[in-house]
């Protein structure tokens, strides 16, 4: 049977996460691609199995049980391509986020310029920067060689110089890289990604090509002040695959099943968000977030211009302690509606890091995990916003208009109540203007992103089939006022005439009871020059909206959200917000 990608119909998409491996089945139903079902199992990348295929096999066994469709054969493994009697699937794609981050040394000319671009590039994958080298770090060539020899990175990213810019300084650093790599065992030599001054590419090739695995990509800073990461980002994904292949048991088998259609989960997420940005509202961007066990990923795109950031060791499982290390106990506590001692909170966070697959048994423990997710998103958004293609204002602290914002990750999809998922996205990201918060309830984003490469039609049709759960339309005015000051008049015009009018006060959180799927027209009249995304401060406007699982949410709590210095006041306010949500559910 011919199984070229164009003719392929059924697709298995497997995502190997840190704690869970999930396999999804997509197939054609009534002439259109649909998500059929998903199966999951604990990931087996680490101890005791050290073989990812075990977890994949178990997730497919569950998928097989749920769908009643035979996908596995004891003799032949995963049945690809599908047989005449509809066993198996035509194509398999896979994504992966499990594993320790790849270790990276970034090299640039200046700390705040090329080194910063190199950092951004490293952050497009699951990486950990273990050392940085620049011309103004005052290290001698000997010190650089010793630093590189001892840190033994998986990857060295070299940036620096505009295409017509400096060359000698960079060449002197390249010599240290070449010598240190040459001194390593051949099978331990790092990948070297050169993304600097293009005029030096020939010299780089002559000096490093025979020593290490050299990758040359277009300059990530072709002219001063402009960052152009995307071509290099693709190459980082290829390097990620190669490093993982060497480190992870069973991955060669996965590459064989997928015929190489394997990518990092973050890269696949970025691809899908880019894809959606070309499909949805042209004047707004699209944001996808994945709050994982070990890492948090943000992918934003405006007209196909993508910004992808992976925050390794910032998650709600193995990365829980990383959230505490990047922020503080006080900052995590600010999100809690419960009373808990510092010691108990710290102990819970570190226990979660050593037992990432464990579930919170008590309601208070779930609140801690939700607070961790909010803080992880807040930290990730804070680092990402200044690098987005569009900015709300010159401060670079708030998200620009986005439509929609899609959240994924077990903490969001497994939350018992929808308001819990919504509050993580709302508090962690603090969107502005009018936007829709959606939930990737079936964990399809990475799978669709991976499948889009081989079958774009599948991604389009599955997305069009209302695959994401609409949590609600959010209206978040920005501006300055005293708490309690009316800042917005909202009129909700319903098709049945049961209109709602509300005066919204600064500092409040209001939920308008609009049924799931109900189409309404919103008339927004901001006061005191507040901005609701209708074209500027004080501008009124109409917008069509659809009720979500949490109706329509008016978040007038301020941007960025301010906290009390007093812990108890914050706790009481969180309790009040929780009650506001609970009234609606």
């Amino acid at each position, binding site marked *: 049977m011919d199984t070229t990608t164009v003719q392929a119909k059924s697709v298995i998409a497997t995502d190997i996460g840190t704690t869970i491996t999930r396999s999804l089945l997509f197939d054609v139903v009534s002439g259109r691609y649909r998500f059929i079902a998903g199966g999951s199992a604990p990931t087996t990348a680490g101890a005791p199995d050290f073989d990812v295929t075990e977890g994949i096999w178990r997730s497919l066994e569950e998928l097989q049980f749920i769908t009643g469709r035979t996908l596995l054969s004891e003799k032949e493994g995963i049945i690809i391509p599908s047989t005449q009697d509809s066993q198996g699937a035509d194509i398999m794609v896979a994504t992966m986020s499990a594993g*320790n981050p790849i270790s990276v040394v970034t090299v640039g000319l200046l700390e705040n310029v090329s080194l910063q671009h190199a950092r951004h590039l490293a952050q497009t994958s699951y990486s950990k920067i273990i050392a940085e080298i620049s011309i103004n770090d005052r290290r001698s060539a000997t010190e650089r060689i010793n630093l590189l020899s*001892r840190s033994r990175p998986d990857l060295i990213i070299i940036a620096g110089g505009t295409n017509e810019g400096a060359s000698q300084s960079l060449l002197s650093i390249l010599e240290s890289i070449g010598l240190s790599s040459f*001194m390593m065992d051949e099978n331990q030599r790092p990948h070297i990604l050169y993304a600097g001054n293009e005029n030096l590419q020939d010299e780089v090739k002559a000096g490093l090509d025979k020593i290490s695995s050299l990758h040359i990509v277009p300059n990530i800073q072709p002219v001063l002040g402009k960052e152009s990461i995307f071509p290099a980002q693709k190459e980082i994904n290829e390097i990620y695959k190669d490093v993982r292949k060497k480190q992870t048991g069973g991955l060669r088998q996965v590459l064989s099943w997928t015929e190489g259609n394997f990518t990092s989960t973050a890269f696949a997420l970025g691809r899908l968000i880019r894809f959606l940005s070309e499909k949805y509202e042209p004047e707004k961007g699209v944001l996808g977030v994945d709050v994982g066990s070990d890492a948090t990923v943000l992918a934003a795109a405006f007209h196909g211009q993508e910004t992808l950031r992976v925050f390794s060791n910032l998650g709600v499982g193995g990365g829980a302690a990383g959230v505490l290390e990047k922020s503080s106990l006080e900052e995590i506590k600010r999100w809690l509606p419960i009373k808990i001692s510092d010691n*108990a909170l710290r102990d819970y966070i570190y226990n*979660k890091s050593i037992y990432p697959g464990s*579930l919170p*048994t008590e309601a208070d423990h779930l609140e801690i995990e939700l607070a961790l997710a909010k803080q992880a998103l807040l930290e990730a958004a804070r680092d990402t916003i200044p690098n987005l293609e569009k900015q709300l204002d010159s401060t670079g602290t708030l998200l620009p208009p986005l439509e929609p914002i899609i959240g994924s990750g077990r903490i969001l999809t497994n939350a018992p109540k929808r308001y819990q998922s919504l509050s993580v996205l709302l508090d962690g990201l603090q969107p502005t203007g009018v936007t829709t918060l959606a939930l990737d309830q079936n964990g399809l984003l990475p799978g669709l992103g991976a499948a889009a490469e081989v079958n774009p039609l599948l991604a389009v049709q599955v997305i069009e089939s209302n695959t994401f759960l609409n949590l609600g339309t959010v209206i978040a005015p920005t501006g300055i006022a005293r708490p309690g000051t009316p800042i917005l008049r909202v009129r909700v015009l319903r098709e049945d005439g049961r209109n709602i009018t509300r005066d919204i006060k600064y500092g409040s959180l209001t939920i308008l009871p609009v049924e799931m799927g109900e189409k309404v027209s919103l008339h927004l009249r901001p006061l005191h020059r507040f901005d609701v995304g209708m074209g500027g401060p004080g501008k009124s406007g109409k917008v069509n909206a659809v009720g979500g699982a949490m109706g329509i949410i008016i978040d007038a709590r301020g941007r960025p959200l301010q906290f009390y210095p007093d812990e108890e006041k914050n706790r009481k306010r969180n309790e009040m917000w929780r009650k506001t949500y609970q009234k609606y559910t």
Partner: protein
Amino acid sequence: MTSKVKHLHSLTSIKRERVLPVSGNMLVRRMQKVSPTDVIVVAPMAPEFILLDIAQGLNITPARADELLQRQAGDDLVKGDIIAGPLGIFQRVIRAPEAGQVKIAGEGKVLFEINKAPYELQAGMEGTVTNIIPERGAIIETRGALIQGVWGNGKITYGVIQPVSNDLLQELIPEQLNISFRGTIITAGFCRNPEVLDVAGNIPIKGMILGSMSAGLIPLAKKADYPIMVIDGFGTHPMNRAAEAILVANKDKNVALNAQIYDPFQGSYPEAIITQSTTKDLNPPPESEALKPGKQVIIISGPLASRIGTIERLFPHKRTIPSGISTWTAEVSFKNEESTEVPLTNLEIIKA
């Protein structure tokens, strides 16, 4: 559902791979008996290089510097040996700054590696070398008691076990520590007082095995000169009964304590091994097993963390637990005939 097996065994077969990430020289052979402090492989883990710019040093062109080179890659030198020169009226030369080896020479430069004491990888346990991993390390096998932990401060030692009290359920307090614990590996229920770590370091003890430890002590524990291993997790839980029984039964015996940093992707767990001579035929314990009725389990998370019980039944459908999450659960009974419902994700099998 399959669960990881938490290794708490009073007697089992233990097989460990001890390897370096870089090539080195092997010092053991197959079937050799080793003690924990025996070195099995040595290697330059943190090599130190010096890049000598001969051309710049002699103020000549790189081509001329190459003509004056007296050494080539691979040459061993002692401090002061001439590398390049002599040049000019003053017979200027470049000498070896330390004893070492020329690694690369050419284009007016020499990369020189200074001789340094190599890193010595110790066996870390008593046992027999059953296999050699060429240039990297060895596989060592033994029989004895094994206690696996979840957190370690990265240090390793070998010494006599000394429980601080008759049961290991209580908090370790500074008043309990005295000079009689000098040079021993102490064991206790839990620790939350930073003073304990200081007092223990001043005695000094050789190592510390705890059921649990307050996470606030992590920075201090990392700085401690002695290894610290935490068996169950962070907080103030008493030590689990299976580990307690093994440690109390082996009082005054030698334990190899490897408080290595826990890394599930590498499969490295902190652990304590107490080698025992036995003629029993033992198989290595499984690394994972299916959770099913009759299996002994330890609860790893929640208010009952570190308690050991037996699975009475697995619920056939997902159930809603007090947090509101819907998940697969099991009924677990304890020795006092109480029972509780626990998510399967919060259980690990033990085969004590």
